[in-house]
């Protein structure tokens, strides 16, 4: 039931607009049988319909948020947990296949290595081992190794993941694990992507708390009022570590590089939903364009791959609903 309600905005945006257009064409074709006097109310009713859905979605969102108690996907980690604990101790051998971008050849090359692992080994552990022992030239971007700095996003067995959080035993298929760089960002070297465009897109949505009284914001004499309940409104969207995995997973980003993408849009919602923010609807107007909100087809891949439980797909639908709602306001 909840799922289907969640899908309503998608159906509305998929079918609502074409239906309205067909109605408009029909009424024009049958003019003067169907006059503008009919057409205008029809469109008004249509817009009202979207507005209601928007309002309902916002209401439901508030309701469902409280049900989301853990900011990460417990099912996936739970599975991993069982796998690690059930594994026998001691070393085990497996093969890692590294698809890497060769700078001088300007193309992808494939290396295979046999490595020893234990039940704790992560993909990052293996890559660093290979770099220090076997092939010093291998380039990886990494830092914190605890899933918070967002450096080591790559494609592991076909799925965008953080190397430092990915347990090898759990994810190996037939004693083999395959890593490749993300494809939605330009390639730099080996497993390293160029993030310049990604950062530019993030910056383009004004990702900061906007206050009209800037001076007071810097002086910070007294805390802004905000209850824990108001914090929960944006908190799930503030977990973004800018790893870029959602962009790599998004089918639209991969086919249309102009689409701003799930990461920046989720951050639009993060600041829009913050009761302290004073930019208001101007935030949404900025992305209320074809290459903004309206290129999202609600595939939901972004939310599925997010390692921190951010749900860009829902954020975008909430923004769409709010944009629609504002239209009839």
């Amino acid at each position: 039931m909840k799922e289907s309600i969640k899908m309503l905005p998608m159906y509305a945006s998929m079918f609502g607009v074409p239906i309205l257009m067909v109605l408009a064409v029909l009424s024009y074709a049958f003019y003067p049988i169907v006059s503008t006097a009919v057409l205008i109310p029809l469109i008004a009713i249509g817009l009202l319909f979207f507005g209601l859905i928007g309002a309902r979605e916002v209401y439901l969102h508030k309701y469902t948020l409280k049900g989301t108690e853990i900011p990460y996907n417990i099912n996936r980690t739970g599975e991993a947990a069982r796998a690690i604990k059930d594994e026998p101790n001691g070393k085990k051998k497996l093969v890692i296949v590294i698809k890497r971008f060769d700078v001088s050849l300007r193309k992808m090359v494939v290396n295979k290595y046999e490595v020893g692992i234990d039940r704790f080994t992560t993909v990052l552990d293996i890559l660093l081992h290979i770099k220090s022992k076997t092939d010093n030239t291998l380039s990886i971007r990494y830092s914190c190794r605890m899933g918070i700095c967002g450096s080591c996003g790559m494609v592991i067995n076909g799925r965008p993941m953080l190397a430092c959080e990915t347990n090898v035993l759990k994810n190996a298929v037939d004693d083999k694990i395959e890593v490749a760089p993300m494809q939605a960002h330009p390639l730099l070297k080996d497993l390293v992507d160029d993030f310049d465009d990604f950062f530019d897109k993030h910056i383009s949505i004004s990702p900061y708390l906007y206050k009209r009284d800037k001076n007071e914001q810097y002086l910070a004499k007294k805390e802004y009022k905000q209850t824990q309940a108001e914090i929960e409104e944006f908190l799930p969207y503030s977990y973004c570590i800018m790893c870029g995995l959602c962009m790599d997973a998004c089918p639209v980003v991969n086919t249309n590089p102009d689409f701003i993408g799930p990461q920046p849009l989720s951050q639009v919602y993060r600041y829009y939903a913050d009761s302290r923010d004073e930019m208001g609807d101007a935030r949404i107007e900025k992305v209320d364009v074809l290459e903004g909100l309206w290129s999202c087809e609600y595939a939901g891949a972004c939310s599925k791959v997010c390692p921190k439980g951010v749900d860009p797909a829902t954020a975008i639908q909430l923004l769409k609903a709010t944009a629609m709602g504002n239209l009839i306001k």
Partner: protein
Amino acid sequence: MQALDYDLVILGSGIAGMTAAIHASKSLSKSKSIAIISKLHIMRSHSIAAEGGISGVLYPGKNNDSYELHGYDTAKGSDYLADQDAVEMLVKNAPKEIRFFEHLGVPWSRNDSSDIVFRAFGGMSIKRTAFAADKTGFFMMRALYDTITQIENITKYHEHFITKILIKNNKFLGLFGIDLASGEPKLFTAKACIIATGGYSRVFNFTTTSHSATGDGTAIAYRAGIPLKDMEFIQFHPTALVPNGILITEAARGEGGYLKNSKGTRFMEHYAKSVMELAPRDIVSRAIVSEISKGRGIVQEGSMIKHVYLDLRHLGKDKLDERLPMIREITIKSLGIDPVEEQIPVKPAAHFTMGGIHTDINGNVFTGDGKGKILGLWAIGEAGCVSVHGSNRLGSNSLSECSVWGRIAGEAAAKLISKGGQANDNTAKELGEDAEEELNKIIDSGGSTSPYYIKAELQKTMEAHMYVFRNKKGMEEARSRIAGLQAIYSDIFIADKGRVFNTNLRDALEIKNLLDLAGVAVACAINRKESRGAHARVDYKKRDDRHWLKHTIAKQTAKGIEISYMPVVIRKWKPKPRKY
């Protein structure tokens, strides 16, 4: 070599560096330019991994808390080696910084009447640590980065590795380094520079810190003849996850977690009866290592590492999900252990380096002779040593330190720049060319030793002899081993000859920095014949205020490391035996 000129360059983009950038930009006119340089993407610095919270007396008088008490706790926690004028500065300014971060968007945990709430931390006699679940550093970093994106005169240099700081006649001139993405050498000239490159805990392998915590700024300053202070004091965090060393925040104990040995006893009652698990970190770390060496540790299957348990089961799922969600996420993802149902295996790991670049109370860097200051150079956060933590930092004081001195140094640098100042002559360019030559030598080095071998050996040595308990024999051995490694460093081989994103070269440069800093730390530790704070010697078990209530100052000379001492600033809080 590309030459770039700015008014201010900030080296390092953690909480200290970015805070400094924001305050400097606010104090400067829009025509002045600021560059912020990081060897990582700017928002990924190690500050992002800070978990527990930031200390500060936000509501003085409430709960009987006061600046005075925060200061006393800090001085006592430091084992009286902290400069107390700096401590007073910290406690007075910390609350302002918590509010500032709130105004930038950090979601501090709050109560129903929207007051910021606090949690207990080790060595803090009253709850005064503000937090955002257990991702405090992450939220502060995101707020800072996001704020910086709207400031037009701050240019961001992601992934630039600085190899040399250019100083002449005690005046800062510029920085030389390479752009990792392209491999292009770059010279940054500026009127002022703030070093905020963090600590060097990666001299150990078992550490809570990021792979990037290699003390690069401290090392290049040292090689430029700048003195370092109190380098022997390296903090070991009591609860690092076994086997990978990931930090399990002190807040886990602040929220009520227990430490237990193999017999299931809360052993802290034998070491710090009045505060139990909430004793300062040095005391808890020594307690854990003692328990393990007395045979009351547990051996982890697979890794065979000996550890004790952190028990959070009695806190319940709801509290863990509200207050410590990341701890639960980390233990589940890396060990398959859900702290709701099972105990967490932990042991002490290198966490924070109290020592750093020798600065005055405003973060201004001292000259080689220790008498004057270098014009236009500041060092703040973990990279510098003002010294506010003395021989042992209290948990949650570091985020306050970074933000307080970020503001102080940022504003001080802005003031210097606003005065106008010197036109750049050719000196910086000449020094930059020398630096480029040095770098090229390393790139072309055709030796036979892998830098990764040197790193592994260094870390092994440090773990064997410079861990929680130290003694003369072990440290002497470490000294000669490190000297040996420094000798073979000249024979390294860099396999990657490419220019684009050459992490092989970057690693080799980082390892050089680690080697130098480890050498200084060991030399200072051998010299200090007492036990104080994090520096615990089995051959000198007592604190000795008569001889050793003084800061160690170390600098590089042609003859090697030269060590001298300077007095500690003692004001309100006179040294007395440290009991908990």
